[in-house]
């Protein structure tokens, strides 16, 4: 029995070592460095300053604005990704002509690199020579032209559109799996009782996919908290920080301003927010369980 126990430990040792070196150690190091004034790259020059970095972040209007951007972006992203993902899944599930081809088309952006999507949408929304403004000009709609990614009012929406385009297809995968778990008999029974498409959709499909909604909410929330790539490529957080998110702020503080202590504090705050939001979502949704489910 004891021999089996030691063998078991040996089997899990590589995974434990990997997680310790690449996950636990960096988080602990990050936590320690968040309490230091550490400018530059050399940690031996860091000086313990307690909660000073956290106080600086609390006072920093730019960081608070970044958090606001993140929450705003998160709400809109989740709403559109879930609704578009679910609607598309339901339509694809009807197995209309060409549904297999459309499945590929809708899922394709998910496997594309963020760099490709970011650059493509940058060129579309580029205010001077971009595809959208050029199209509007040639269609006689030049009054609709805007500075898009050059205007603080519109830049975040441009990034939102790119993000929804990239990830709406992911919802299809999850909702597909969820729909497969709903018995057709329920829909048949509803039809017999006179329920139409939308009634079935709102009264049957949406409630019975609660588990899936929770999964997407959790992943979407964490994804938005660590959102970086599209904003970096399309706007670098500008103009005037209107598209800056916490992780872009972290990147700027660490890479551009060499303020490693402050950047570590931002990382810890993101971890805390992710934990609290995830716990909150699970609490509100009852851990994704149906009523009466154990």
């Amino acid at each position: 029995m004891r021999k089996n126990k030691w063998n078991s430990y040996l089997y899990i040792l590589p995974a434990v070592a990997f997680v310790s070196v690449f996950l636990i150690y960096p988080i602990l190091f990050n936590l320690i460095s968040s309490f230091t004034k550490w400018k530059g790259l050399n940690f031996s020059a860091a000086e313990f300053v307690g909660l000073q970095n956290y106080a600086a972040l609390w006072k920093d209007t730019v960081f608070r604005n970044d958090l606001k951007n993140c929450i705003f972006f998160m709400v809109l992203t989740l709403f559109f990704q879930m609704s578009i993902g679910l609607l598309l899944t339901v339509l694809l599930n009807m197995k209309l002509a060409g549904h297999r081809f459309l499945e590929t088309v809708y899922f394709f952006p998910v496997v594309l690199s963020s760099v490709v999507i970011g650059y493509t949408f940058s060129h579309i929304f580029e205010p001077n020579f971009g595809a959208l403004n050029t199209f509007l000009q040639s269609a006689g709609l030049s009054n609709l032209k805007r500075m898009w990614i050059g205007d603080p009012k519109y830049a975040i929406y441009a990034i939102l559109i790119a993000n929804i385009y990239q990830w709406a297809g992911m919802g299809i995968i999850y909702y597909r799996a969820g729909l497969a778990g709903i018995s057709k008999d329920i829909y048949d029974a509803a039809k017999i009782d006179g329920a139409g498409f939308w009634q079935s959709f709102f009264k049957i499909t949406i409630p019975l996919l609660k588990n899936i909604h929770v999964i997407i909410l959790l992943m979407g929330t964490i994804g938005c908290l660590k959102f970086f790539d599209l904003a970096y490529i399309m706007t670098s957080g500008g103009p005037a920080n209107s598209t800056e998110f916490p992780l872009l702020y972290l990147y700027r503080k660490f890479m551009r301003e060499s303020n490693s202590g402050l950047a570590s504090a931002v990382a810890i705050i993101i971890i805390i927010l992710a934990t609290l939001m995830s716990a909150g979502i699970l609490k509100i949704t009852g851990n994704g369980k149906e009523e009466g489910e154990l």
Partner: protein
Amino acid sequence: MKKCRILSVLLCAAMLVTGLAACGKSDGDKAQKDGGGDGKIKLTFMGWQPELQMMNDKMLPVVKEKYPDIEIQVEILEWFDYWDKLTIDSAAGDAADIVAMDVDHIATFEDYYMGLDDLAKDVLGDGWEDQYNDGILDDLRGVSSDGTLKMMPSDVTGLWYIFYNKTICDKLGVEPPNGEYEDLARFAAEIKEKDSSILPVAFAAKEDVNLGYFYLWLATNNQQGIVQDAVEGKASFTDDAFVKAFDQLQRMYDDGILAEENFGLDAYPGCDEALKNGNCAAYLTGEWYLGNYLMGTSLKGTPTENDEMGVVTMRNVQGAETCMQKYTSFGYAISNECEHKEEAMKILEEWTQGEAANEWMNYMACVPAAKSVSIDVGNMKSEEAKKTYQKALDDLNQNPSVLRSTLNIELDNKIGEAVVSVMRSGLDVDEALKQIQDTADAVR
């Protein structure tokens, strides 16, 4: 069964060892640097300017002829990517032997790159400092915290210059700008009137930091020395010179010089391509484009390949003496990790003073830091370029000058951010200046 169990355990152990061993640095790189079997010393170089690609064609052959035992591997990245990679490489102790450097970044990287004074004296001899123009080396020493020279200067650059396309101006019947503010406003208005599809003056206002530098130039020309005084705490960023600079920016916006379209343009590729493609009539930027546009090195194959380009210094908007922003924009540093420091110093000498430096300067048409290097004006593409180039250089050398930045990246970023917020988000000027002052106090 027992054999399977032992095999599984051994496989797990092997996975663990392999995974952790893969994290280390390869000794193969070291062997390669030592030249392997051919006896050559291999040095690595990393830089940012796309023009450095010409190194392969022009500069490296010169070095190869002079030092046949030294081989150089060149890696070129875009500006922002370069500093990101340099940060990671420097922290990991994996930086190239020789790296491109500019004065704004010396403070950030000084711990990773060696002081060059002693090495230069050993390799180049006692009189090595006399080879460089007066004051340049001391200015660079003043930037590092230990007072040592961290980069060998290659060229000096300055702001602000207006490169204009004379061919477009002639076609539209518009007189090119002469650099005075009122004339620039006239130029912008006439271009807009004659052809609304052409942007009168391109300016990389999308880049916060660029707009911030321009703002500091305006403030400096309102009161010389005010920026440095504010940084040191002898003056305040809420002083009148800074308030007036915002008014001047707004005036430029209202007069169409700083057009709305500029807030969607970055320097590269945005403004650069706009000028090369004939989408703008002028480009307000730094002296470092002299080679690209006046020598025509980057116009080949573009719609403006045969256009006449000229340059003029932008004058103080108040009409008083113009103070330039001037700094050692480009040079070379040697990594602390470099194992062939003497050879690296010989390369630095060649790249900053020697024939290779001449090749570089005549390609870029920058102001050389070394006395022995000169620009052949005969290489200029057009008569307009030849006519206007010397005046632009004279202004840079003769006008009073200050550094472009505050030498603190955090403060520079804050200034750029605040300026863009005022121009685009309606942030109150007093609030913006207060935020800048708070950052200046925090970083001092």
